[in-house]
């Protein structure tokens, strides 16, 4: 009774809170990291070293006037940020933070659900997230945000293809679509998949940057774009929801990369008994550490690289990443059969 109802609900509550809080503080992390790269300090005033800045931002956004354009479609206008945010949040349901921890005598698995199509679930949920952008562009009742929204979603869909094909190579290696199963397969193989599938990792990373509309693929939301992005007509908390959804997507992509390629909750060199000292660090700490490293790299890339033009971006996705992903898939399949 407790295990089937109470524990899952508790886990959901904890996870939701954790994700929402981390997403909020990611804004601060991004501002600080970019500031440090740019030889400045970032937010410093609110709280010690600016630690309470996200709270100030949240209060400001909540107090702003909620403007709905007069001729916009009210239902769709309200729906768009929700459709952007919810898929990003529910994707966390299958991400395993650790196999289990003992909590007041109960063995609690640190994932909400381990379904046997976990990986596919994440991909499909991300596909739903595309609707948020299209609807936001549409709801603005203006030609340019609509076109910007369609362009942004075309970008997302194109890179989804490359990512999905790349994921299949991982599935071939692991033999299962379940996230926990993939980590177990890495444990059995004794090596993180990043060493066995470096090309796939690169594709996931680049595709992840494009999926989350991050630099260098952030032309649809760049300020220098003449025609305004898909979120032009949004203000206040609705506007914030889009960007929080973007950060949540970033965390999902980082978590997926950590799980698929870097062994999830496994410590480095999990099969080497000589490093047993590392085993004292709980698995979920390793997992969070790996995810955090990826997030940091996302932010680092944003601070450094210029952005691609839209046609160059699409060319990269279709002409480079997809053939690469297919080639990787074919080679993986052949090697799996031969070896």
């Amino acid at each position, binding site marked *: 009774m407790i295990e089937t109802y109470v524990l899952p609900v508790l886990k959901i509550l904890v996870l939701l809170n954790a994700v929402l809080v981390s997403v909020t503080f990611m804004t601060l992390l991004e501002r600080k990291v970019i500031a440090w790269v740019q030889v400045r300090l970032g937010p410093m005033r609110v709280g010690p070293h600016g630690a309470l800045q996200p709270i100030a931002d949240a209060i400001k956004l909540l107090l702003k006037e909620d403007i709905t354009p007069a001729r916009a*479609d009210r*239902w*769709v206008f309200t*729906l768009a940020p929700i459709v952007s945010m919810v898929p990003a949040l529910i994707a966390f349901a299958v991400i395993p933070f650790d196999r289990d921890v003992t909590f007041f005598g109960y063995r609690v698995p640190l994932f909400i659900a381990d*379904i*046997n*199509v976990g990986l*596919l*679930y994440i*991909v*499909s*949920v991300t*596909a*739903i997230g*595309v*609707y948020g952008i*299209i*609807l936001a*562009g*549409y709801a603005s009742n203006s*030609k340019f945000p*609509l076109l910007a929204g*369609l362009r942004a*979603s*075309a970008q997302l*869909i194109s890179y989804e293809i490359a990512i999905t094909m790349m994921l299949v190579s991982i599935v071939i290696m692991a033999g299962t*679509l379940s996230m926990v199963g993939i980590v177990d397969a890495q444990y059995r193989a004794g090596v993180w998949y990043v060493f066995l599938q470096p090309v796939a990792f690169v594709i996931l990373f680049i595709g992840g940057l494009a999926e989350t509309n991050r630099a260098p693929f952030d032309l649809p939301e760049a300020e220098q774009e003449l025609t305004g992005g898909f979120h032009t007509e949004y203000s206040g908390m609705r506007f914030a929801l889009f960007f929080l959804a973007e950060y949540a997507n970033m965390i999902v992509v980082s978590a997926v990369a950590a799980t698929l390629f870097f062994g999830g909750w496994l410590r480095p060199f999990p099969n080497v008994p000589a490093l047993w000292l590392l085993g004292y660090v709980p698995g979920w700490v390793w997992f969070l550490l790996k995810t955090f490293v990826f997030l940091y790299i996302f932010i680092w890339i944003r601070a450094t690289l210029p952005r691609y033009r839209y046609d160059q971006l699409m060319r990269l996705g279709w002409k480079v990443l997809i053939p690469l992903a297919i080639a990787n898939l074919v080679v993986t399949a052949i090697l799996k059969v031969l070896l």
Partner: protein
Amino acid sequence: MLESLVFYSLAAFILGFGVLVVTARNTVHCVLFLVANFLCVAVVYVMLAAEFLAVIQILVYAGGIVVLYLFVVMLVSLRRAPDTPPDTRRQSQLGFILSAVMLAEMSAILMYSAARPSSAVASAPAPAGGGNTEMIGMLLYSDYLVPFELASMLLLVAMVGAILLARKDV
């Protein structure tokens, strides 16, 4: 008991959204109701222990095909053609005929299935021998290989056709 409750409410949603797809005024709303419909159908698949099918339903149908519908609807709505008044009499005549045909078909199916004993209503036990994904994979690549390959050829033809149509002849 819980399963029946969930199933019947899902069925109500599916039917409700289906009706709304046809009756909504705004085309974009129609498409959105269609997405909601598909999501509910995916949940029904999950209840039938066909989780792979459910996820594929969301990924391909709701996340791919309907996005395409949405693109077309939005781009077409940009260039609004002058509205010709629809020919309601002819439309309702056609509608009547089609509904009658549908009704005949569905009664035939119902009578046919009532004559044979059917399995449980909503949920089914998980099939033995691996999960849903493995079973579908095995079947697709052994018994249904030819239809599978034909379907992919069909998709390839469609893709090439689309590219040719969309290409600007410079």
